[in-house]
């Protein structure tokens, strides 16, 4: 029997699910290897007997937690799909403000109207077995991780800095172009695509497990940049992590 897989979306832009659809352009064979029983973005049928669940999006309200727990209960393997699910990502930008401030700002005196709380990654709520990082995810990495999960292996994603891939690309370093880049501490695997197209890395794939903060500081110093500037860059995708760190 083919393993049954399901896709779920929480608060997200659905760009990662679309990347899954795009990954089929070069891997139509995937459809023969698995049976997709739920994929709201692309199909009407809804099966509930899945073994592998891919979860896109951040948890942004209490009722999301029940849905997440139900998925965890059913699935043997839960995979976080993309930065929203993996890190909180772009949704957590607003976490620097208190939830009341955000509601006042956006809703005015109807602040209590909508159910919402501080956006968080899904592993703040349930155990996650594997992560496909990025905003959006990388197509090839998606296929690679799915293949490993299907073979019952633990998926491996790179744990070295973006700078290594960037140097292989022979891209002119963003610091030489007068920009800040988080490449020295961010997780590779994206082919250092942002510097390649002229944008400093903002760490959408999260930080490596042992980020060498000293070498990051050295780079900053060498180019006359400040830690504040690097922190400002980190606030795009890593706000949840920096706030957690500040608390612990």
């Amino acid at each position, binding site marked *: 029997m083919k393993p049954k897989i399901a896709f779920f979306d929480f*608060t*997200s*832009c*659905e*760009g*990662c*699910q*679309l*990347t899954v*659809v*795009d990954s*089929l*352009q*070069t891997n*139509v064979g995937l*459809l023969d290897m698995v049976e*997709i029983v739920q*994929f*709201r*973005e*692309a*199909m*009407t*049928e*809804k099966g509930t007997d899945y073994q592998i669940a891919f979860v896109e999006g951040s948890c*942004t*309200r209490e009722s999301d937690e029940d849905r997440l727990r139900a998925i965890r209960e059913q699935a043997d393997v839960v995979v976080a799909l993309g930065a929203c699910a993996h890190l909180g990502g*772009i*949704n957590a*930008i*607003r976490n620097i*403000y208190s939830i009341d*401030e*955000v509601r006042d*700002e*956006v*809703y*005015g005196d*109807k602040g209590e*109207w*909508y*159910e*919402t709380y501080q956006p968080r990654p899904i592993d703040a709520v349930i155990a996650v077995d594997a992560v496909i990082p990025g*905003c*959006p995810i990388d197509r090839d990495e998606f296929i690679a991780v799915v293949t490993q999960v299907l073979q019952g292996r633990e998926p491996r994603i790179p744990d070295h800095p973006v700078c290594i891939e960037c140097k292989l690309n022979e891209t002119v370093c963003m610091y030489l172009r007068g920009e800040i880049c988080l490449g020295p501490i961010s997780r590779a695997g994206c082919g250092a*695509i*942002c510097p*390649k*197209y*002229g*944008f400093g890395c*903002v760490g959408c794939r999260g930080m490596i497990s042992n980020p060498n903060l000293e070498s990051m500081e050295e780079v900053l110093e060498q180019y006359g940049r400040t830690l504040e500037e690097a922190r*400002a860059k980190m606030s*795009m995708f890593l706000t949840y992590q920096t706030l957690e760190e500040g608390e612990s």
Partner: protein
Amino acid sequence: MTTNVKVDVHHLTRVEGHGNIVVNVVDGSLEQCELQIVETPRFFEAMVKDRPYHETSHITSRICGICAGGHATTSLRATENALGIEPTEQTVLLRKLNFFGEILDSHVLHVYMLVAPDYLGLGSVIPLASTNPEVVLRALRMKKLAGDVCEAICGRHTHPIGMTVGGFTHFPQRADLEALREQLIASRPDLEATVELYSTLSLPAFERETEYIALRKPDEYAFIDGMIASTDGGEWPLSAYQSVTNEYNVPHSSAKHTKNQRDSYMVGAQARFNVNYDLLHPKAKEAAEALNLRPKITNPYANAAAQVVEIVHSIEEAIVLTEELLERGVQWEEPVKPTRLTGEGVGACEVPRGILFHHYVYEEGFAVKANCVIPTGQNLANIEADMRELVPTILHEGEDAVTLKLEMLVRAYDPCISCSTHLLDVEFVE
């Protein structure tokens, strides 16, 4: 004859985002007829607040994965208008080419993967892979082409990298453009096959004329910038967008509704077709002929067919554009610098689903206020008006048929429900 019909489609599938269709007919009279939008808002206003001007396009692109390039382009235009930046001719051409990639990508996804299954009696495009593999392979091929266009210009389709305020940070090489031109030309048989496929589908018969609104330019079928134009007459500058959209709140939707000169209006491919038919590429006009489409199209189910016409237009115009770029050559240019850091501006684009507005206020280079009016929000009132007129005429067909026809109607609009509540400015009436 059925006198009680209850339709409750919870989390409509094959649309972007979360919406419910609720129809309640009691003793033959329509008690309730709503497209409920239940998506959680993402508070984008709070997300861009206090961020530097060069980040807003990267943040707002994350409103929607399908229209990422559309949001980014609209955001850049709003920021440029706010900060007094005039992009160069080359920037305008490159953005246009990228935009054709965006329209192509989204329309192919919609016409092949989201709409076609309904007409073929399938729940998704997946069974089609074994019954009609050539159709699925063609769709994937066309999507790849769209992705390749965006990749050559901006690095990737979902969340473009190389576009920035005032220009680009990366430029395609001559060889990239040559390869694109070849690929675009080679896709013409796929275009023909797409037109042919859609000419065989029979749309539900339903006509309801409404107001159609789209951007208009004197000399081209507008996608980026222009005046706001209506089939009911009238043209407005972008800065007057709020007097056209007149947003208002309804209790059953976390996205606002809009109206202009009537109770509702329609935006999207069909509206663009109705407003700008005269400016379509001749090959697109031929496709319209083959699909039996003439302005004004008043059957909303035909929106997907209008998208097919725009697919042809996008590819043909993209060929013209790549040739122009090859002829003039692409130079490395530094992005144009802001002439002021405090200011207010509106930007507008015809993204795949219709007219999109971004509006920012910057102080000293940081965003202090943001607003965004999204196509699907503008279509909601019109979809409900269609539903109210359609339901009584099809009640006798029974609940299943009513449900399917309503789902198909909502899907025809290609609603991007996740976007419509990712409003930057959300307010509720009591």
